[in-house]
């Protein structure tokens, strides 16, 4: 690993932290993407506008970054199996982040940021299961 391998992750992480701090210090909001995304579902009502603008900003910011730093690598080739995996993984991520009240951003960046024991427990569990799944289970499915 050389310097360039972790400079971009570090800089990108700092941008994510800055965005989260802006939302927290200015508006008293937690930049948790799962909570923000579920908050725009019709069943939730209220305070939908800032959430929609945050999500639109996510896409716009990502797109602007591709103009400056180059596009995302092309996605894996479309196959039925890969599509089923994406759908199944999506259901699990939605179910789990809803039940556990947060994801990498809400519990990770923000929850650890305010030194929440709940968030620390969440991060330890999803990191451990993420690594175990990618290492042991995913090779059997792909």
């Amino acid at each position: 690993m050389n310097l360039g391998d972790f400079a971009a992750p570090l800089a990108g992480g700092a941008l994510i932290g800055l965005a989260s701090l802006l939302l927290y210090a200015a508006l008293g909001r937690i930049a948790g993407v799962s909570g923000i995304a579920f908050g725009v579902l019709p069943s939730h009502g209220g305070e939908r506008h800032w959430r929609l603008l945050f999500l639109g900003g996510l896409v716009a910011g990502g797109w602007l970054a591709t103009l400056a730093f180059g596009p995302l690598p092309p996605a894996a080739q479309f196959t039925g199996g890969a599509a089923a995996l994406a759908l199944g993984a999506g259901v699990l991520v939605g179910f789990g982040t809803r039940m556990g009240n947060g994801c990498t951003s809400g519990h990770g960046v923000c929850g650890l940021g305010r030194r929440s024991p709940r968030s620390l427990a969440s991060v330890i569990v999803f990191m451990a299961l993420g690594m175990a799944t990618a290492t042991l289970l995913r090779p059997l499915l792909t």
Partner: protein
Amino acid sequence: MNRELLLAAVAGMLFGAGLLVSGMADPARVLGFLTLGPGWDPSLAFVMAGALAITVPGFALAQRRGQPLFAKTFPAAPSSGIDRRLLIGAAIFGIGWGLQGYCPGPAVVAAGLGQWPALLFLPAMLLGAWLADSV
């Protein structure tokens, strides 16, 4: 546009650019980080390090002020403690993350950029949240 909406859009843009720059929006990179063994790519650990280097001192400074700049109160910490829902939810999320390499933020960005796995993943994620509310 009012101040709250403008700030939300700006925060979203910084966040989205950060996800792209950091490598988190590329699921192959994320899976390279989550898959242990020879060829393990630890670089994405620095994403969390970079973010926490800002949020840990920044949130503490913000709280010292007593209230947000443009709102009445900071959100209260949940009172529920470390309970079963938190741990089981985190475990299920971790399994989904390790299968595909998308967590919610990168999925939104990648879907917006037209990546086909994210375009399937995102509606499935909303369905999963709806299911969690139904059990």
